[in-house]
C-alpha cells in the first residue's frame, strides 16, 4: 500500500448524481470539475516536503558523449542530486516493445532532446540553473535524416548497430503488378507520390507526475499514462525493483492521443526520489513536452494503381516509408497497420505493398490516434480521386465500385466478418444537404476570418470525400485483455457498486461508460469508479479505440459474475433454484414469479466482489513475406465529406462542412461519442491544413503552440453526423471502437476538397498556403 498519498491525489469518482445505463447520455463525472478548473491533473499533485526534478536534454540530433561533469551542478545550493546513466539502478534500457531506449543517454545521443542527466532541487528554478552547470562533452556527428536513405542506401550510417530498418512488412496478393497479364487488364494506370508531415498529439496537459519513496524501499508513482501495467513492466527493471514495489496510480490525464504510451518522466522521477529519499515532482513545460513524447510518423509513400475502364481496381503497387526517428517505440506496429491497411477498404486482386519503418536521427515517432492507418489513408484516398479523375468518374462512384462489403477480403486475406455497409454509407453521406454559400457579411465565414484577407475575392468552393478503415484493439496475436473488479455492497441503506479497473481515463469518457454498464447489468443507480491503479490487473492500453470494447467487456463480464453470485445467494436463502432471474431497480425479479427479493437483503450477508478478465478473439501475425493473416480484431469504418472554401489567390482555407457517416455498432453514450467524432475529425483537419512539427537537420523548428498550430473553433465547422448501429456480433453490446476512424477519413476528404477547388495535384499534408500559390502570377 502507498505509504502516504499526495494532496490532490485521485479519489473515487462518485456518480450518484448521475443516472443512465447503456445507450443513455449521462454527463461525465469529471466534467464539471474540468470546466470549473477544479479537476486535479497530474501536474497539480503536491506534497509539503517534495522537491523538483528536471531533465538535461541533448541539443544535438546525433552526437557521441565523451564525458559528463556534474560537479558544478552538485555544488549549487538547493541541489539534492544530479544523476546520469551511471546512476540507473537496474536495466539501463527500456522501450514499448524493443528495449532500445536508454533511461539516460549512454555514450551517445540519437535525437535532439534525448535525456542526458537529471537534477533534483528544492525549486524548479534551482533545478533549471543546475542543468546549465552540467558540462557534457559532445562530439557532434552528421545526423541521419533521410528515411529513404535509411532503407535503401547500404552506405547510410547506422543509428543502431542492428540496422536502420525497424520493420519491413510486405503484402503480396495475386500476381505482380509488373506482370504483363495484369497490366493487360488495365485501361488506366495512375501513380502518385505522397507525403505526410510530423503531427503532434498536442495534448494540453504536459508530461508530469510525482514519485514518492516508500518505507519498503519501493516507490509510489502518481502519473498520467495510457497503460499503467505496461509502464510498470518497463519501469521496475530499470529501477532494479520487483514489480510489487512499484505502485502506480493514474493521476488526472490532460489528453493523450497516443503520446503517453511511451514513458517520459516516470523512471526519472522515481530514480531521483529513491536517491534523495524525498517525493520528487516533475512537470515539463510546453517546449519540453514537444521533446518529451513521440509524434506521428512522417511518411513518404509511392503508389501506382491500375484499373479497368469501369473503374474496378486491378492492381496496387505501394511503397510506404515511415520515419521512426531515434528509437523504435511503436514503429513495428505502426508498420503493421500501414501495410495491412495500405490500400484501405478496397478490394484489389493483385497487390504488392512494402511498408518500412526506420531509425533516423529525426524526432522519435510512435503512437498517435490512427496509428499508421492515417498516413496510408491519405495516400490511398488521394489515389482513388486520381483514378476517378483519370476515368471521368465521380469520386463516390469509384469508391462504391471497389469498397469492401461484409464477406470481402482485405489485403491481408482477412475476411470482413461483421457488417460493412460502406457503399451505403457513401450514399447516405452524399444525400446529406450541402451547406449554403458563404455569408460574406461576416468575415468569420471566410478564409482568413477576421484577419480581413478577403471579402469573397478569389474564394472557390470545393468538395471532397474520404473513407477510413481502422483496426480496433491490438492486432497480430497480441492478447490485450482487460481486467475489472466489481463490488456490490450496502452503503448505509442504499446499494452501491464500485468499479475498479486499471484503465486510463484520458478524456475519452471511459469512466462514464463503465458506470453505465454497471447500472445496466446490476440494476443499481449508485456507481462509483475507483482510481485506476496497479492493485488490480491490467486493462490494456487506452489506445487503438479499444477501451469501450475491452474494459467495457471486462466490466460487463465482472458484473455478470456479481449478478450470478447474487442469484446464487438468493437461491441458497430460498433453498431452491431459479432459472429466470434478473436484476432491476435494486430488486431480484423472477420472470415467472415477480419480485422475489431485494439487493439490500442479499447484501446484508456481506458485499459481493468479482474480478474478471476479458479477452478478445485471437488474431494472427502477418506472414513476414506475404502479409497474409487474420491480423485484426475488429474493423471500423467512417466516411467524410468535406466542403472547403479556398482563397485560391492567397492559399487560405475555410473548411465549411465536414460531414460524417460512421458505423459504431452500438451507441453506448451519444453525447460522449459525438465528442469523440468531433475531436477525431478536428485532429484530421489539423493534419490536413496546419499541424506539423517542422524539422531541419534533425532539429525541431517550432516547439511551441505559437508555431505548432492546432485548429480553433473558427477553423472547425459544425458537423452533420449520421451514426449507424450495425452490431458486430463478437463485441460487447455489438459496439465498435469509434475514436480513431474519423481521424483517418477527414484528412483526405479535406485535401480532396482543396484539390477540387484549386485544380492542383496536392501530394503533401499539411497543405500550406504556399503550396496553393506557388507559380501564381495573378497578383
Amino acid at each position, binding site marked *: 500500500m502507498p505509504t502516504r498519498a499526495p494532496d490532490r491525489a485521485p479519489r473515487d469518482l462518485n456518480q450518484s448524481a448521475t443516472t443512465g445505463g447503456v445507450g443513455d447520455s449521462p454527463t461525465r463525472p469529471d466534467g464539471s470539475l474540468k470546466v470549473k478548473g477544479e479537476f486535479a491533473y497530474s501536474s497539480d499533485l503536491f506534497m509539503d516536503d517534495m522537491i523538483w526534478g528536471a531533465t538535461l536534454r541533448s541539443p544535438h540530433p546525433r552526437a557521441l558523449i565523451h564525458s559528463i561533469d556534474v560537479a558544478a551542478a552538485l555544488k549549487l545550493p538547493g541541489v539534492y542530486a544530479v544523476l546520469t546513466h551511471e546512476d540507473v539502478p537496474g536495466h539501463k534500457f527500456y522501450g514499448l516493445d524493443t528495449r532500445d531506449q536508454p533511461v539516460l543517454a549512454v555514450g551517445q545521443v540519437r535525437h535532439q532532446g534525448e535525456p542526458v542527466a537529471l537534477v533534483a532541487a528544492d525549486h524548479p528554478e534551482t533545478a*533549471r540553473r543546475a542543468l546549465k552547470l552540467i558540462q557534457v562533452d559532445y562530439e557532434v556527428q552528421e545526423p541521419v535524416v533521410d528515411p529513404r536513405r535509411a532503407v535503401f542506401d547500404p552506405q547510410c550510417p547506422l543509428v543502431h548497430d542492428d540496422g536502420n530498418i525497424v520493420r519491413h512488412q510486405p503484402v503480396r496478393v495475386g500476381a505482380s503488378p509488373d506482370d504483363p497479364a495484369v497490366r493487360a487488364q488495365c485501361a488506366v494506370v495512375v501513380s502518385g507520390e505522397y507525403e505526410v508531415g510530423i503531427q503532434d498529439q498536442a495534448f494540453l496537459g504536459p508530461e508530469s507526475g510525482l514519485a514518492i519513496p516508500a518505507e519498503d524501499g519501493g516507490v509510489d508513482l502518481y502519473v498520467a499514462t495510457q497503460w499503467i501495467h505496461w509502464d510498470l513492466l518497463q519501469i521496475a527493471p530499470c529501477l532494479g525493483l520487483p514489480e510489487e514495489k512499484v505502485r502506480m496510480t493514474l493521476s488526472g490525464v490532460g489528453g493523450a492521443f497516443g503520446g503517453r504510451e511511451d514513458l517520459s518522466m516516470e523512471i526519472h522521477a522515481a530514480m531521483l526520489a529513491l536517491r534523495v529519499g524525498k517525493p520528487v515532482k516533475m512537470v515539463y*513545460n510546453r*517546449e519540453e513536452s514537444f521533446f518529451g513524447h513521440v509524434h506521428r510518423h512522417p511518411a513518404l509513400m509511392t503508389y501506382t494503381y491500375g484499373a479497368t475502364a469501369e473503374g474496378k481496381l486491378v492492381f496496387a503497387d505501394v511503397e510506404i516509408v515511415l520515419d521512426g526517428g531515434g528509437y523504435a517505440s511503436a514503429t513495428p506496429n505502426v508498420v503493421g497497420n500501414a501495410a495491412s491497411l495500405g490500400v484501405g477498404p478496397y478490394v484489389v486482386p493483385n497487390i504488392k505493398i512494402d511498408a518500412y519503418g526506420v531509425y533516423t536521427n529525426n524526432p522519435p515517432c510512435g503512437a498517435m490516434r490512427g496509428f499508421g492507418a492515417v498516413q496510408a489513408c491519405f495516400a490511398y484516398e488521394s489515389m482513388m480521386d486520381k483514378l476517378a479523375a483519370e476515368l471521368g468518374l465521380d469520386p463516390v462512384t469509384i469508391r462504391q465500385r471497389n469498397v469492401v462489403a461484409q464477406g470481402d477480403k482485405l489485403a491481408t486475406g482477412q475476411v470482413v466478418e461483421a457488417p460493412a455497409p460502406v457503399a451505403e454509407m457513401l450514399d447516405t453521406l452524399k444525400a446529406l444537404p450541402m451547406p449554403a454559400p458563404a455569408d460574406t457579411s461576416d468575415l*468569420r465565414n471566410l*478564409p*482568413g*476570418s*477576421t*484577419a*480581413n*484577407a*478577403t*471579402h469573397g*475575392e*478569389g474564394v472557390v468552393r470545393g468538395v471532397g470525400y474520404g473513407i477510413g478503415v481502422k483496426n480496433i484493439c491490438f492486432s497480430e496475436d497480441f492478447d490485450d485483455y482487460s481486467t475489472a473488479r466489481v463490488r456490490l455492497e450496502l452503503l448505509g441503506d442504499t446499494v452501491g457498486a464500485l468499479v475498479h479497473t486499471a484503465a486510463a481515463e484520458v478524456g475519452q469518457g471511459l469512466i462514464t461508460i463503465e458506470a453505465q454498464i454497471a447500472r445496466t447489468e446490476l440494476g443499481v443507480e449508485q456507481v462509483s469508479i475507483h482510481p485506476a491503479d496497479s492493485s488490480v490487473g491490467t486493462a490494456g492500453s487506452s489506445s487503438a479505440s479499444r477501451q469501450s470494447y475491452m474494459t467495457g467487456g471486462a466490466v460487463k463480464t465482472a458484473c455478470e459474475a456479481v449478478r450470478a453470485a447474487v442469484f446464487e445467494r438468493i437461491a441458497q436463502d430460498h433453498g431452491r433454484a431459479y432459472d429466470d432471474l434478473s436484476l432491476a431497480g435494486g430488486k431480484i425479479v423472477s420472470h415467472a414469479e415477480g419480485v422475489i427479493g431485494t439487493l439490500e437483503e442479499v447484501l446484508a450477508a456481506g458485499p459481493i466482489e468479482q474480478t474478471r478478465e476479458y479477452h478478445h478473439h485471437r488474431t494472427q501475425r502477418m506472414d513476414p513475406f506475404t502479409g497474409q493473416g487474420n491480423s485484426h480484431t475488429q474493423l471500423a469504418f467512417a466516411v467524410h465529406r468535406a466542403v472547403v472554401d479556398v482563397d485560391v*489567390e*492567397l*492559399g*487560405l482555407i*475555410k473548411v465549411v462542412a465536414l460531414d460524417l457517416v460512421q458505423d459504431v455498432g452500438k451507441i453506448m453514450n451519444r453525447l460522449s461519442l459525438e465528442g469523440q467524432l468531433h475531436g477525431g475529425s478536428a485532429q484530421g483537419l489539423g493534419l490536413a*491544413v*496546419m499541424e506539423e512539427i*517542422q524539422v531541419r537537420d534533425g532539429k525541431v*523548428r*517550432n516547439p*511551441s503552440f*505559437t*508555431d505548432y*498550430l492546432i*485548429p*480553433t*473553433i*473558427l*477553423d472547425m465547422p459544425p458537423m452533420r453526423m449520421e451514426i449507424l448501429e450495425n452490431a458486430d456480433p463478437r463485441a460487447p453490446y455489438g459496439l465498435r471502437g469509434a475514436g480513431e476512424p474519423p481521424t483517418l477519413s477527414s484528412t483526405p476528404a479535406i485535401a480532396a476538397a482543396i484539390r477540387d477547388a484549386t485544380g492542383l495535384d496536392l501530394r503533401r499534408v499539411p497543405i*500550406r*498556403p*504556399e503550396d496553393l*500559390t*506557388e507559380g*501564381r502570377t495573378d*497578383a
Partner: protein
Amino acid sequence: MDFLRPATWAEALTARAERPDAVPIAGGTDVMVELNFDRRRPGALLDLNRIPALRQWTRDPDGTIRLGASVPYARIIDELRTDLPGLAMASRTVGSPQIRNRGGVGGNLGAASPAGDTHPVLVATDAVIEVESAERGVRAIPATEFYLGVKRNAMAADELIKAVLLAPAKGPQQFSKIGTRNAMVIAVCSFAVALDVAARKVGAGIGSAAPTPRRPFEAELFAADALPWDSRADLDPRIATRFGELVAAAAAPIDDVRGTAAYRRHALSVMGRRTLTWAWREHQSSQSCQSSKELT
C-alpha cells in the same frame, strides 16, 4: 528578480532610470512568454499597471488622439473603431479575446517584433510615439523612425512609452493579415493602407516581411498619383494590381517556420491590391452618401 510597482508616472520614470536592467511590463502578453520560456532573465520587472493614465485615451484640442500605451486592444476595437478604423482592424487580429483584454499598443512597440500586428497601421498613418525619461523629459518619435531592427527600437534605456498620437482617420483605412489559422495566429505578413482624401495622399505599411515594419514609398506615391480623386470613378484594376506589385517590391521577407519569402511577397501583392480596392470603394460610397445628403 525584483518586482517594482510604481504608483505614479514620475515614480515609474525614476525607477526606469535607476534600473536599466528592468523590463517594463503592462499586459504581459509578450513579456510573460519570454520569462516562462526562460529566454529572458531581467534583473527586475517594472509593473506599469498601477498608472491609470496609461490605460486612458484622450483627444487633444487639435483632434489628435492620445492613446495611452496600455489601453487594451479590446477597448481600441470598441471605442476607437470610427476614429482609428485601421488600428481597430489590426487590434481585432491580435491573439485571443483574453490577450486582447490584456495587451496594448505599448507592448507591441516595446517588443518591436517584426510581426507585431499594429505596426503597419502606425507607420501607414504617421503615428507618433511619445516616450519620456526622468532626465530629458518627453520625446516624440515618428513611427517610421521608431523601429531599428528585429526587436530593437529607438528608445533609450531610461525611457518609457507614454502614449501613441494618432490623427483621426482622414479617409478609408484597411488592414489585412495572413495567418495559417483562422484565429489566434502570428502574422505571416500583414499590410495596412490609409487614404488621406483631402490631401490626396496614400499611406501604407508592411508588417512581418522585413526586419522592421516599413512603408512602401513608391507604392504610396504611385497610388496617390494614379487614384481618380477628381472623378471618383471606379478603380481601374490595373492600378490596384500595380500598387500591389510595388508593395511586394518594397518588402524584404525571409523564409521561416511561418512561411516562405516568395509566399510573403505574393501575399503582400494580393493584400495591397485588395485593400486599396476596398478603401477606394468605401471612399466612393461615402462620397456618394455625402452627395446624396447634399441633394436632399
